[in-house]
C-alpha cells in the first residue's frame, strides 16, 4: 500500500475520502494542464518520432509485401490490440455511471480520453484493409458474415463502423468535457483560456444545460457500448475468423469484446496510477477507485477463461476434422508458446494476484495486475491474428484447414510498426492532458457532493447519495 495514500491512517485501516472544497478542486485540477510541461514535451517529441517511423515502416511494408497477405498478421494483431485497449477504456466510465456508481466519477475523464486512440487505428487499418481479400476469391464467393453482399462489404462497412466508434467516443468525451472547458475559460490563462472559451460553447451551467449534458452522456454512452460490441463482432469475424477455412466459432466475437473490456480496464488502471503519482492527485484518486477497478479486472479475467474454455471444450470434444484443425492452428500449433505465455499473463497470473482483497484494495497492487493483463492481451492478439493471417488465400475455400501453416516471425518492419503504432495511439492521450484536466472537475465535485464521510457506529462510513 502506498504511504502517500491520504485515505489510510496509521493502523492501515481505510478512512473515507475527505471532502475537498470546490474551489480547491478546480484550482488543483486546472493546474494539472501545466504540471511537468517540459517532461511531457520531451516524451511527446519521442512518441512523435516513433510514430513517424512507424508510419514510414507501414508504407514501406505495403509496397514490399502487398502481394502476400500472410505477412500482415502482426499489423492485424497490433490493430486488434489498439482497438481493444483504446476502444474498451471508455466503457469504464460508461457502464458504472449507468449503474449509478459514485466511485467512478473521478475515472470518467481518463477513460473517455482513450477514445482518441481510435484516430491512430483509423490510420493504421487502411493498408490492412487493402490486404483483406474481397468476398470473391478466384471467382468463388468465400465464407463471410456478409453472405451475398457486395464483394467489398467488409472493407467499407468495417471502416464505417470503426469510424462510428471513434466519432461516438469523441462525442462522449467532448460532451462530458463541456463544463470543464467552461472552467478553463474562467480559471486559466493564455491560449488555454481562449480554447476553453471556444470549446465551452457558452456553457454557464443552467438547469437546462445540465439536463442536456446528462442526457447526452447517457445517450452517447449507450450508443458507444452498442457500437463497440458491433465493431468487435466485425473485426473478429472479418479480420480473423473468415481468413481461416472452417473456423466457425460463434463465441469468438464475444471473446474479442470481453478481452477488449479487459484491456480497457487495465489501461485505465495503469493510467490512473501514473496520473495519481505524476500529477500528485492523491486527494482525488483514492484506494476506492483502484479497489473497484481491480474487482472489475478480476471478474473480466475470469470471463476470459470462461469464454476461452467454452470454445475449447466444444472443439476438443467434437473431434471432427474441423475441430481438430482449430485446435492445431490456435492452441497446439505454430504459436503454442505464445498461447501458453499469453494465457499465463492474461489469466493465471492476474487471477492469482487479484484474488487477494489486500492486493485489490491498494494503490500499487492493481497496477501489477493491469500490466500483466496488457502483456497477456498483446500476446493473445498475436496468437489469434498472426495465425489467422498466416493461412494462404488459396486455401480460403476449403471445408477445413488441411495444412497448418508454419510460424510467421516478425521482421524489422513489423517491429517498427508495432512500436510506432503504440506511440501514435498514446501521443494524443498525452497531448490532451495539456488541454484539459485529466480528471473531470465537475465529476470530482459531484463525487464530493454525493459522498459524505460519516462516523458509523464504531467505524467509519460514507453516506452515498443516489439521485435518479
Amino acid at each position, binding site marked *: 500500500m502506498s504511504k502517500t495514500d491520504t485515505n489510510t491512517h496509521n493502523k492501515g485501516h481505510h478512512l473515507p475520502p475527505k471532502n475537498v472544497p470546490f474551489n480547491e478542486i478546480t484550482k488543483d485540477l486546472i493546474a494539472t494542464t501545466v504540471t511537468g510541461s517540459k517532461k511531457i514535451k520531451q516524451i511527446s517529441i519521442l512518441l512523435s518520432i516513433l510514430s513517424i517511423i512507424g508510419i514510414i515502416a507501414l508504407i514501406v511494408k505495403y509496397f514490399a509485401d502487398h502481394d502476400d497477405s500472410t505477412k500482415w498478421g502482426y499489423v492485424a494483431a497490433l490493430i486488434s490490440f489498439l482497438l481493444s485497449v483504446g476502444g474498451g477504456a471508455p466503457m469504464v466510465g460508461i457502464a458504472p455511471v449507468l449503474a449509478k456508481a459514485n466511485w467512478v466519477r473521478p475515472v470518467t475523464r481518463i477513460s473517455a480520453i482513450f477514445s482518441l486512440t481510435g484516430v491512430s487505428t483509423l490510420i493504421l487499418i487502411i493498408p490492412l484493409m487493402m490486404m483483406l481479400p474481397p468476398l470473391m476469391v478466384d471467382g468463388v464467393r468465400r*465464407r463471410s458474415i456478409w453472405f451475398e453482399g457486395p464483394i467489398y462489404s467488409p472493407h467499407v462497412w468495417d471502416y464505417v463502423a470503426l469510424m462510428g466508434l471513434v466519432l461516438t467516443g469523441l462525442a462522449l468525451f467532448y460532451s462530458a468535457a463541456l463544463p470543464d472547458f467552461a472552467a478553463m475559460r474562467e480559471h486559466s490563462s493564455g491560449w488555454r483560456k481562449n480554447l476553453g472559451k471556444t470549446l465551452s460553447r457558452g456553457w454557464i451551467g443552467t438547469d437546462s444545460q445540465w439536463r442536456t449534458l446528462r442526457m447526452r452522456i447517457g445517450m452517447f454512452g449507450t450508443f458507444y457500448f452498442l457500437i463497440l460490441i458491433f465493431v468487435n463482432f466485425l473485426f473478429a469475424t472479418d479480420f480473423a475468423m473468415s481468413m481461416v477455412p472452417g473456423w466457425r466459432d460463434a463465441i469468438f*466475437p464475444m471473446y474479442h469484446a470481453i478481452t477488449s473490456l479487459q484491456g480497457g480496464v487495465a489501461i485505465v488502471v495503469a493510467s490512473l496510477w501514473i496520473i495519481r503519482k505524476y500529477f500528485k492527485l492523491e486527494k482525488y484518486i483514492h484506494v476506492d477507485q483502484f479497489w473497484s477497478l481491480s474487482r472489475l479486472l478480476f471478474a473480466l479475467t475470469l470471463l476470459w477463461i470462461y469464454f476461452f474454455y467454452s470454445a475449447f471444450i466444444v472443439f476438443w470434444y467434437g473431434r471432427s476434422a474441423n475441430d481438430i484443425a482449430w485446435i492445431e492452428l490456435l492452441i497446439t500449433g505454430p504459436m503454442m508458446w505464445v498461447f501458453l505465455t499469453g494465457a499465463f499473463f492474461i489469466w493465471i497470473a492476474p487471477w492469482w494476484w487479484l484474488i487477494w482483497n489486500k492486493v485489490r484494495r491498494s494503490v500499487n497492487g492493481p497496477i501489477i495486475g493491469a500490466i500483466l493483463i496488457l502483456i497477456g492481451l498483446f500476446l493473445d492478439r498475436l496468437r489469434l491474428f498472426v495465425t489467422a493471417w498466416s493461412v494462404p488465400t488459396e486455401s480460403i475455400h476449403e471445408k477445413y484447414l488441411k495444412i497448418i501453416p508454419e510460424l510467421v516471425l516478425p521482421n524489422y518492419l513489423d517491429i517498427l510498426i508495432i512500436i510506432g503504432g503504440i506511440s501514435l495511439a498514446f501521443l494524443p492521450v498525452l497531448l490532451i492532458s495539456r488541454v484539459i484536466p485529466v480528471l473531470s472537475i465537475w465529476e470530482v465535485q459531484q463525487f464530493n457532493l454525493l459522498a*459524505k464521510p460519516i462516523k458509523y457506529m464504531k*467505524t467509519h462510513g460514507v453516506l452515498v447519495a443516489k439521485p435518479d
Partner: protein
Amino acid sequence: MQQRRDLNQVHTNKVLLNGQLNVPKWWAPTVALLGIMVLIGFTAIGIMVNKGLGVTGLSRPVYWGLFITTFVFWVGISHAGIMISAILRLTQAEWRRPVTRAAELLTVFSLLTALFFPLMHAGRPWRIIYYIIPYDFSRGIYPNIRSPLIWDPVAISTYLTGSTLFLYVALIPDLGNLRDRTTGWKNALYTILALGWRGNPRQWQMQTIGGILLSALMLPIFVSVHSIVSWDFAIIPSVEGWHSTIFAPYFVIGAVHSGVSAVVTMMALMRWLWKWDDFIRPEHFDALARLLIVVATAWLGFTFLELIFAVYGLDAPELALREMQIFHWPWNLLFIIFLFTGYIIPVGMWLFKSVRSNIALMFWSSILVNIGMWLERYLIIVPGLARKQPFVFTWEAYRPSGLEWLILVWSFAWVTFLMLLFSRFFPLVPLFEQKESQVFTDDVKIGRAKVPAIIREID
C-alpha cells in the same frame, strides 16, 4: 430507494411473519388443490415408469423431447437465486433485499424439480444407479466420466447442496425470531434449526462472512451448471444446430433472463397474496425490469450470434435445419411466439416506466418471458433431432403425448406446492435484511432536493 418507508421492527415482524403465525385463509384450499395436482402428476409418472417410454411421444430419431426441454427450463429458472442473491449482494444493490429469500427458494425447488426429468427420461430410473456404481469393470461397462451426462448430475447436485446451504445460512436469524414467538413442537423445531442464534455481534459477523463467502463460492457453480447442461448438446457435432461454441454463455444468460423473470412473477404473487405492499414495492419491480432489459438484450445478442454463425458456415444440412426451424410449419409458429414472448413484447413494455412500476403488467410480462424461454429450449433441442437425414429408416414427427404434457403441468404445480408449504413454516421475505435496509438507508438534502442515500461501511 425512492419509495423507502420508515417501518419499525415490531411492524416488520408482525407483517412478515403473518404466513407462519397467522395462516391466511386462502392457504389451505390452494395447497389442497395443488396437492391433488401433484398426486395426479406422480400417478402419471408412475404409469410411465410402469409401462415404459412407449407412453410418451418419444421415438426414433427424436429421443430428447419434452422432458429434456423441461429439465433445461427448470435448471434455467434455478439461476434466479444466485443472480439475485449472490451477484446483487456482492455488488451491494440495495433493492435486492426483499427478493433474496424467494429467489433462493426458487433455486432450490426448481433444481429439485429439474432432477426428476432426466430420471423419468431414463425410462427405467433405477438403472441410473449404474452411473454411480459401476457394476462390471471387466466388461468395460462403466460410465464414461468424461461424458457431460456424468458432469450434469455432479454439477446440479453441487449447485443444489450449495443453494440449500446458502438459503439456510440466510434463514438462521429469522429462525431465531420464529423460535422466540412460537410454542410447542414448532418452538422445538425452530430451536433446533436456529442453531443457538442469539444475534450477538460475533454471530452476526459469522453470518455476514458466511453469506459473502457462499456468494463468491456459488458464482462459479452457478455459471458451470448451465454451461455443463449446454455442453450436453454442444459437444455433439452430428446433430445440426447443437455444435456451437456459444452455447455455454448463451444458456447461462438465457437462464438468468428466465430465472429473474420467474422472480418477478413470484414477487407479484407474494405482494398480492400476503399483502406485503410496504416491503415489495413498485421500485423493486422497476429495478428488476431495468436489470431484465439489459439481460434480455444481451441474450438476444447471443441468439443473433448463434443464428448468424450457424448459417455462416454455409453447410447444406445446417442451412436446411435453420430453414426448417424458422420457416417450416409448425416450427415457424413456435419461433415467432418464442421471439415475441421472449423478447419483443416484454422488453418493449419494460421500456416504459409506467409499465415497470405496474405490478400486474410486470406479472404478465414475466410470464410471457418464461413461455418464450421454454419454447427456446424446445426449438434448440427438438428440430435438430427431428430433421430428416440420410440413412434414417424410421421417420415420424415428434408429438408430445398427453402424459408428457401432464407431467409438464405437474412440475409447475409441484414447485408452487413446495413454495407454499415452505411459506407456512418460514418467512418468504428475510426479516433481518429488511431491518438492515432500514438502518443502511437514509435521505440527504442536496441543495433543495431530498436524495435517497446508502451508508457504505469502510473496512
